[in-house]
Structures are given as structure tokens and as C-alpha cells.
């Protein structure tokens, strides 16, 4: 068997929500390059699957589409080639009714890839387009590349942007690929179990085709703990017979986490979407008996709880709130901030700030004031309101500088899809009361609006009016924001070039006049703009904003203290209780745990509840407990001089090991000896997290929630490249031909 090459190895990590994949092992291991939502749409034909929804065009949509396509063909021939190909593909598939089931799955997948291929040049973020169509999880990496491309391709994107629909004019009617429509999607996994194998295989096929690996690509797949032997056999069969892989290995996802952390013993807590897996691993052996899956408790339960607390927000909005940095789980006992505490904090902080920040600050405010046309305000007869608003803004500015946990309200950027066919309207009218009822709102400082309204500065007073007017319709919390935040990370050089196309693209929607103003910027204005950009940059950096796809926009939404209560649905206790004595060393992974403060809160919950403090022991050896000056008559409670370090009070390692479930080999017993050392028999006396690996810088930025993928990379390197099958770490095609699917159990 010739050795496999690093850059040929394909790793797939299917999950209930997102499937990760990557081809090739880079020099320094990086987070997964391909992220695809784990769902497929049933195709037109029975038993076929497509990666994007194909539906019949709605009434009225049809003519538009046909016309649009014709126009597109005429105007941009270069770009249209891709479209044509795509259409042909679709045509073939749709028209060829005699296709067998198997091939039509292939067809569906090829079509999927065609979509990606087509999207690539226009959007500049190849796989991310797929991801962004549904819930955009986290589109890491790719940022600089993408924004650059977006800047260059801005104009093109403008034309193409909203037209992510490709139509097919067969006899049966007009079909469109609707990337926004999630309805009817089949999520092939639920709680770590495959619920629809047809769909699951189609997904794998789709992943495989998207990556389009070579013939010499071995596959390493991670599987969630709920896979049983039969599932693994099905998987093996599929990989060898459909994907034609030359080598295949599967690995338990929690084991991969240990590979990543480089430890041999730990308890892995994987907080998923609708479940949490708890897996104790001792010496790289998964303790099957002791592993549990807490079904129904995962990231989603926090979202649901938040949704209950904020009944006016839409599901996607809540989801985004949960993912935003302002959603934080405070350690128990922290008093939730109230208006009073905020004021106190502001007052306390103001002194310092006065010294250091005030000049800067004043300047800022002044600048902002300066950018307002006083005459317009006076003319509108809203002077008082304006002043009041200003005052509040100032307060808001102070408040903004407080850390999240001390603020009563905080805002986050909501990424929202523009609704197709609603081009002229960018502001999504959300009634003030929606959020206000749950959280009394502070109007946003002008900053939030600035990106939208920088252009209207001096020259075009009347033109600026509608912009502010529309903005004030949504007054306070729902401010339309242009592309400025995502563009912020772009190089300074790109700024002017980027500013121009970006402004017409988005701002044209809000304030048409502003668009015309934009090209005619004078120097002062540009300076002003740059300043804002820098400010934005700071905020964006602090907020860790994901890059936007071109059909998305930011909206700032403010949320009250509800944001701290995501975990109050009991998820922490649920997990803690299920950990039940498996806490020698913990690793928490899974995207559900990404919520800020989750890990710390979990640890403190466990500690608060189960940690055995050594206090009584030390008291006992050093002095009599104050309440026990005289021994009782029975003598039962006579404090005995004893050496707690001595043998007799050691825990019985057998017993401890037996009943802690997790530990049943001598290795673990040593651990117990070690940890329960000082004569105290009950465990746990230490509960701690395992330190995350530090030698992969890319992962440091991305967070360690998906660290299993890193472990898979390490393992793939070892299995396929270093080891080359010497210790039968993977199954080769030859072995498969001999042994059939069940040969996978020998690996």
C-alpha cells in the first residue's frame, strides 16, 4: 500500500446541525474549512436529495424570473456561462425521468456542487455560501479574502446578489432553487443518531462532491457516541462502495477530543444541539458503560428558554442573540445588573474616565454633533426630543464602556437576510414595543446610525432627512447598518474603493440621495468616515462580528438582562447531575457550550454542588471544632488524634473505582489515590478543566468547541501518514473486499 499524502486526507465530522469537512492536512492544523448544515431537501423525484431547495416557482414569480434571466444573459455574458451550465444540469436532471434512484442521488449532489461553483466567483467565499444560506453558524477564516473579493465584486454582486435562484423551464413548470427557504428540509441526524439514512448518505455524497477529492483520498470519519455497530457497518459500506475511498477509518468523536488535548484520561462533555454527551475516557479507552447522553438538553434548550423570556423576538433572532458576545452566563450568585447598579457603576467609572478619556470623549461627541444639521432638527420641531436623546446617548456612551456583565442593557448585531423581492426596503420594521416590553430601551447613540448617515452630512440636508426619518421610524433599537462593520477589517487601502460601491448598494435602499452624495465626498467627510470606521472597527472587533454575505445586513438589537438568563432553564444542573462523579478532569466541547461564560458557570455549578472541601479535615487535625469542646458521653464523637495522611483512612480504591462507574482499571485507581490523597476519602476534592492545547494558533482564535476536528486531524496524520496502516489503524479497500462491512470492527 503506498503511503497516503497529507494533502489527500479527507476528514468528515457529521453533526446534528453542522457537518464539518476538510481535505488535506495543512502544516498547522486549522479549523474545518467546509461547514455544511446537516440537512438535505427531498428532490423532485422520490428518493433523490438536493442540497438546496428546489420548488416550483410561485405565481407571479415566474415571469419575473424568466425576464430576469433573459436580461442577465444579455448583460453579463461572462458570468452567465456558469448559469447556463447550471441550468443545463438542472434541465437534464429534471427532464430525464428514467434515471434510477442511485444515479439521481449522484445527480443531486453534482447539482449541489454546480451551485457552489457558480456561487464562488460572485460571492468570494466558496463554501461559506452554503452555510450562510441557513443559520450562519460561524464563518471563521476566509475573512480577508472574502471581504477583498466582496469589495472588488461589489458591483457585480449588486446585480447578481439577490438572484440566487436558478430556474429551469421544463414542461412540468418552472422550478427554482431557493436558498432562503428552509421549509421541508430534512435534518438527517437527531440527537447524534441518524434518523434518515438516505438523507445522510446524500449529505455525505454532497460533502464528498463539494470537496471533490482525488482517488487516493482516504477518509477519516468521526461518529457521535450513539452510533451502534450496525450504523458503522452501513457507513463503511457506503464509503467503500459509493465514495470509492481507498482507505477508511472511523473514530469516536470524544476520543478525537482527547487526541486534540493530548491527554489520555478525561471526561468529555459535548454540548450539542439537542443533546449533551458525557463520555469518560480512561487511557484512550472509552468507557461505554458509563457514558451517558442527556437527550433534550443542549444549545437548543438555551435558545428555547431565551425565546420564552423574549417572546417578541423571532427564533432566528434569539438564536443570534445566544451566539452574540453579550449573551453571557454569569456565575451563580452574581447579582443581575439593574438600572441602579448601572448608575453606580457609571458614577464610579466616570472619575477615572474623566482623567483619561474625557478629551477624546468630548471630541467624539462633538464630532457627532457636528455631523448633524441643527437647522434640520430645529425645522422639524423636535428640538426637545433631540436634546433628550442626546442626553441619553451620552449616558449610553458611558454605559457602553462598562463590561457586559455590569450593564443592564446591551446590544448586538443581528445578521438578517434581506427578503427576496423586497429590494427597496431594507429596514425591517420591528415595532419598538417588541423588545421594549421586555426591556426598557435606551435609544442607541448616534454611532449606530452613522454608517448609514455619514454621507448626508453638510451638502444634502433635505436628502438626509428621509434617511433619518426612516431610521427614526424604527427609533432606538432597530437601526439599519450598512456594510461598514464587515468591511471594517478590510485593508485601509481598500477603504475608498470599498466605501463607494458599498454605499450605493445598501444605502441606496435607505436613502437614495445619500448614494448620490457618496461619490462627491470631500476630504473632511472622508476623514470623518475613516474615524467612524475606526470606531466601528473597534466595536466590531470587540463584537467579533462575522463577515457578511452580500445579501445580509446588520441590525442592532438591544436586549435587557434576559441575556444573562439563557442557562436558567436548568441545563447546567442537568449536566452537572449527569456528570455524577465523573469529574476528575473535564473537557467541555460542542457548539452549545459556546455561549459566553457557559463553561465557567458549569464548573462553578458542579463545584458548588459536589465539591468536597477539605475544611473539616484540616480543622480536625489542627484544632477542635469550636462547637465541640467537650466529648459527648458516648464517646462516639471524641475527636481522636489521628494522622490523616495515614493508611487506614485512605479510600478503598476498589470501592471508589467500582462505584464511580468511570474508573475500572488500575490507572484510574492511581488517579484516585493521587487526588483523594490527603486522607480524605470522599471525592471529588478537585474539579478542573483540562488545559486546552496551545500549539495551534488557528484554533485559539476559533475557540475549542469543535476541537474534535483537530483531534481528527492529528489522528488522521498518525493513522494514514505516520503509521501507514502498520498497526491496522484503518481499513483498506483490500481488507474491505475480504471482510465486508463488519471488518470495520477490527480496526
Amino acid at each position, binding site marked *: 500500500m503506498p503511503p497516503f499524502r497529507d494533502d489527500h486526507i479527507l476528514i468528515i465530522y457529521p453533526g446534528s446541525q453542522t457537518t464539518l469537512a476538510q481535505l488535506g492536512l495543512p502544516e498547522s492544523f486549522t479549523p474545518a474549512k467546509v461547514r455544511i448544515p446537516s440537512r438535505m431537501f427531498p428532490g423532485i423525484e422520490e428518493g433523490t436529495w438536493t442540497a438546496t431547495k428546489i420548488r416550483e416557482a410561485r405565481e407571479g414569480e415566474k415571469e419575473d424570473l424568466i425576464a430576469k434571466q433573459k436580461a442577465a444573459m444579455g448583460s453579463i455574458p461572462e458570468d452567465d456561462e456558469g448559469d447556463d451550465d447550471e441550468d443545463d444540469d438542472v434541465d437534464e436532471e429534471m427532464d430525464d425521468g428514467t434515471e434510477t434512484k442511485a444515479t439521481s442521488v449522484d445527480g443531486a449532489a453534482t447539482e449541489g456542487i454546480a451551485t457552489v461553483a457558480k456561487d464562488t466567483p460572485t460571492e468570494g467565499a466558496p463554501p461559506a455560501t452554503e452555510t450562510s444560506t441557513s443559520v450562519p453558524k460561524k464563518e471563521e477564516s476566509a475573512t480577508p479574502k472574502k471581504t477583498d473579493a466582496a469589495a472588488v465584486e461589489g458591483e457585480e454582486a449588486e446585480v447578481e446578489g439577490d438572484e440566487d435562484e436558478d430556474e429551469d423551464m421544463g414542461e412540468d413548470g418552472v422550478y427554482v432553487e431557493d436558498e432562503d427557504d428552509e421549509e421541508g428540509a430534512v435534518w438527517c441526524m437527531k440527537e447524534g443518531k441518524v434518523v434518515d439514512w438516505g438523507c445522510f448518505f446524500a449529505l455525505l455524497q454532497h460533502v464528498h462532491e463539494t470537496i471533490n477529492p482525488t482517488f487516493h483520498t482516504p477518509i477519516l470519519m468521526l461518529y457521535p457516541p450513539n452510533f*451502534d*455497530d*450496525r450504523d458503522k457497518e452501513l457507513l463503511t459500506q457506503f464509503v467503500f462502495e459509493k465514495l470509492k475511498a481507498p482507505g477508511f477509518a472511523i473514530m469516536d468523536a470524544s476520543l478525537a477530543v482527547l487526541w486534540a488535548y493530548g491527554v489520555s484520561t478525561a471526561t468529555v462533555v459535548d454540548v450539542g444541539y439537542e443533546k449533551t454527551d458525557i463520555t469518560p475516557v480512561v487511557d484512550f479507552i472509552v468507557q*461505554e*458503560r458509563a457514558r*451517558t*447522553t*442527556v*437527550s433534550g438538553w443542549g444549545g437548543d434548550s438555551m435558545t428555547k428558554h431565551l425565546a420564552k423570556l423574549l417572546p417578541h423576538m423571532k427564533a432566528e433572532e434569539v438564536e443570534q442573540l445566544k451566539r452574540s458576545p453579550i449573551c453571557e452566563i454569569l456565575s*451563580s450568585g452574581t447579582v443581575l445588573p439593574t438600572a441602579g447598579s448601572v448608575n453606580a457603576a457609571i458614577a464610579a467609572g466616570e472619575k477615572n474616565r474623566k482623567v483619561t478619556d474625557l478629551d477624546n470623549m468630548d471630541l467624539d461627541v462633538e464630532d457627532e454633533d457636528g455631523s448633524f444639521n441643527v437647522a434640520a432638527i430645529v425645522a422639524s420641531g423636535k428640538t426637545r426630543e433631540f436634546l433628550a436623546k442626546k442626553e441619553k446617548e451620552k449616558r449610553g456612551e458611558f454605559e457602553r464602556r462598562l463590561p457586559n456583565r455590569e450593564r443592564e442593557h446591551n446590544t448586538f448585531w443581528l445578521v438578517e437576510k434581506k427578503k427576496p423581492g423586497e429590494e427597496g426596503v431594507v429596514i425591517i420594521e420591528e415595532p419598538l414595543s417588541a423588545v421594549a416590553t421586555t426591556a426598557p430601551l435606551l435609544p442607541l447613540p448616534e454611532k449606530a446610525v452613522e454608517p448609514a448617515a455619514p454621507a448626508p452630512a453638510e451638502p444634502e440636508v433635505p436628502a438626509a432627512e428621509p434617511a433619518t426619518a426612516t431610521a427614526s421610524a424604527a427609533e432606538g433599537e432597530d437601526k439599519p447598518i450598512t456594510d461598514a462593520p464587515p468591511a471594517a477589517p478590510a485593508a485601509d487601502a481598500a477603504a475608498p474603493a470599498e466605501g463607494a460601491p458599498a454605499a450605493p448598494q445598501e444605502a441606496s435602499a435607505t436613502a437614495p440621495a445619500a448614494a448620490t452624495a457618496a461619490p462627491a465626498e470631500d476630504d473632511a467627510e472622508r476623514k470623518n468616515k475613516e474615524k467612524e470606521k475606526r470606531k466601528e472597527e473597534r466595536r466590531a472587533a470587540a463584537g467579533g462580528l462575522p463577515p457578511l454575505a452580500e445579501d445580509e445586513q446588520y441590525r442592532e438589537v438591544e436586549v435587557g438582562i434576559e441575556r444573562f438568563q439563557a442557562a436558567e432553564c436548568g441545563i447546567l*444542573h*442537568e449536566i452537572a*447531575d*449527569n456528570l455524577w462523579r465523573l469529574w476528575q478532569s473535564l473537557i467541555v466541547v460542542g457548539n452549545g457550550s459556546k455561549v459566553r461564560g457557559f463553561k465557567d458557570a458549569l464548573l462553578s*455549578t458542579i463545584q*458548588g*454542588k*459536589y465539591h*468536597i*472541601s477539605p*475544611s*473539616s*479535615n484540616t*480543622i*480536625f487535625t489542627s484544632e477542635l*471544632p*469550636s*462547637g*465541640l469542646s467537650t466529648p459527648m*458521653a*458516648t*464517646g*462516639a*464523637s*471524641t*475527636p*481522636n488524634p*489521628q494522622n490523616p495522611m*495515614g493508611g*487506614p*483512612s485512605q*479510600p*478503598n480504591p*476498589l*470501592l*471508589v*473505582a*467500582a*462505584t464511580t462507574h468511570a474508573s*475500572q*482499571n488500575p490507572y484510574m485507581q492511581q488517579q484516585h489515590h493521587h487526588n483523594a490523597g490527603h486522607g*480524605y*476519602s*470522599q471525592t471529588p476534592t478537585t474539579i478542573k478543566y483540562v488545559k486546552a492545547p496551545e500549539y495551534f494558533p488557528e484554533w485559539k482564535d476559533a475557540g475549542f468547541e469543535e476541537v474534535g476536528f483537530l483531534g481528527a486531524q492529528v489522528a488522521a496524520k498518525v493513522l494514514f501518514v505516520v503509521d501507514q496502516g502498520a498497526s491496522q489503524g484503518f481499513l483498506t479497500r483490500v481488507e474491505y473486499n*475480504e*471482510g465486508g462491512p*463488519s*471488518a470495520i*470492527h*477490527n480496526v
Partner: protein
Amino acid sequence: MSHLHQTLSSNQAPSTVEYGGDEISAIVLDPGTAWTRAGFAGEDTPKSVIPSDYGVIDAVGDEPRKLFIGDNDVHAIRPGMEIRNPMSDGIVSDWDTAPLLWRAAITSRLTTTLAEHPLLMTEPSWNPPKNREKTIEIAFEDFDVPAFYLAKSGVCAGFASGKATGLVIDVGASNISITPIHDGLVLRKGCTRSPLGGSFLSDQIRAYFASAAIPLTAHYQVLSKNAVEAWKPADAVYKTFAPGQEPTDSYKRFQEERVLTEFKEYTAQVWTGPGPLPPSTGAHDAATSLLSTTGRPFEFPDGYNLVFNSERHRVAEGIFHPPSMLTNYAGHPDPSSTLGLNALIHASMKDVDIELKQLILNNVVITGAGSLVYGFTDRVNAEIAAAFPGPRVRVMAAGNSVERRYAGWLGGSILASLGAFHQLWISRKEYDEHGAGIVEKRCK
């Protein structure tokens, strides 16, 4: 070729299997009072271990009765959920629920296709014929298995320690059973048991707490705790329940049981002798002076903690010396008529043929999770040595706690994976032909 082939090719008998194909491994199910264990034959630990206790919310009006099985479900707090157990004295008493429990144990982790795997189950030696027939019926009618066998757990436990002949002392949850085996067969006459198992020990500890006014809390009642000094009242935040939302008493008891288990593991200890634990005589406690160096602390879920001295020996003494058991609770065994462990061994050996006696005493096997209480094996060793003086008496207990806990299952796993065992399976065809009565003929 397959896994099975590789490991068994040398000693595999010509395949007479009727369930078709040797690639499918059998499932071994070992239902006990506290835990139900299931796994594939040939593996060294059961993959699926679920509590035999289950939660149930009884039918109200149109709502059907709801069952909650498995570690997650049974420990979750639900108003009105009662905790019950389908076993009593080691054998099934609730035939409605036990099969559901077994099915859950298998399907949760092992396989969802019961019809593809032969099933080997274990049973205690005192399982009545009615129960055995019921078991095979469920296996073939309900689970639809291709082949079935019912093995004695005592024999299996002997196999797990590599003994076909010996005296198996199994300390289970509901009782302690003594099974003399010879050549893989149970010597029925010598089988004895007493109800002084793990649950008895828990009850003793609970009774002791009650008598000493030590408050017992369960983990679910506590939200967080602060460290307090020994003997100081607890300083903890408790969970509050809205009226009507409180968990039931049986749930509370079940959860308290977990704390008692912890106490058994960390603090309780068997008095190693020689002789029974000296009685407590008040101020000048002989036991206290003897035990003066072995005080051990225990912290309750709410942070309340204290140091136990002779009491932690006293609670376990009832197993060996029933008259010294605590009797301040309802349902305790009769202290005067119940046999202690040493009397039990004696009674068992009395009925064993004289020529087998030496052979059997040479292979005394201690198993069961209850035997993991600190000092237990030492005490048994001492008792046996005193009762049967002679150089050839040998007591062994697996050092590995898993082997001790799951000895019955492990023996079943070994048995079912043996090539020679293949001819022992009762196939579906045989069952269809002879009916449930076949179990009496084939599973001795």
C-alpha cells in the same frame, strides 16, 4: 475474516448453528435488582448498564401510564413520578415492566434489531420454573430472538473467575446468595441465601442516621453548598418546589439511596475481626478504643460533615452478626432468625457431599458489588478460616472491581462466546416444537 473467526478458529466446533452465520455476536443480559447489565458476548465489560429501578407516572384519565427507564430518565425530577423496581429477592415479580426494562437495556446502546442476535440471560439459582418459562416466552415471542439460553448467574460468576467448581458468594443488592458449583453445575442442595445484601446495608445506615439525628439530604435538593465546619449545621441553598411539583417520596428515597451508596463506598467498613464487633457499652466503649485510629469523615450533599468512628463498623456488622443489626425501621429482617454470612456458609457446606467439600472450599469466590465494602473479604476470610480450619481453604476475590461487579455478566459473555457453547442454544425451531417447557430440559 470476521472478528469472531479470528479469535475462535482454533477451538471452534463445526458450526451447528441454526441462527445463521457466526458473524453475529450474541447478546448477554444479566438482570439484577439494582442494575440491569447488557452487552455483546466476547466483550469484557457490559456496554449498557442501566438501573433496574424505573420511574413511572401512573395513568390519569386519558393519559396512559408513562415509564422512565435508564440513568437519565429515572434521575430526572418529575412531579408525581414514582420509583419502582420490577425485581424482588433477585427474581422478576413485575412481568409487565421487566421486559420493557430489558429491551431498553439492549436497544439503548447495543442494537435495535433484537431479532438478529441470540440472547443469553442469567438467572439466580432459586428462580422458579414458572419464571423461567415466562422468560423464554418473552425472549422468543416478544423479542423474537433467533436463539436463547438461560444460564445460572452463580455458575457464570464462577466462570468469570475461571472456576467451574467452587463456592460462589454473591453479595447482591437484595440478598447474599451462596452457590456451590461443581463442573459448571449448581449443587442445588447447598444453595442458601439471606436478605442481608446491599440494600440491607443501606437501610442500616439510614436507620443509624435516624437514630443519631443526622439529617440526610439528597443531591437533587441542594443547589449549591458552602463549606462548613464539622458538626456545624449545613449552609446550603436548597431547591424549592412549587406546591404540587414536589417529587414523590419514593423518588426522594431513591435519590437518598445514592448518598447512602456513597457512604458505603467511602466510609462504611466491615469490622475485620477477630470475632464479632465488640458491643457498644456506652461511655467506655471497647469498640471505640479498639477502633480509635480509624475515624473517617463524610460530607453530605448539603455540606454537613462529620467524622464517623465505630458507627461505620456497626452499620455493616448486621451482615455477619444479625443480632447486632439496627432495628429502628420498618421491614427489617428478623435479627434472631436470619442467618448471618458465616452461618450461611456453614449451612451451605453442610449439604455438600463430603468428597466435594475440600474441592469446593479450595475455590471460594466472592463476587457482587456489595462485597466491595471495605474489609468485607478480610472478614469472610477470617470467618471461613475459623469455621473450616485447614490449609486448603482458599478465598479469592477479583482485584478488578469491574470483574467483581459484573462477574455474572462476564461469565455469561465468556460462555456465549465459546465455540462449544453453540450446541447449547435453544433455537427458535426447538422452541416452536416443544414450547416453553424446553427451558427446564435444556437449561440446567
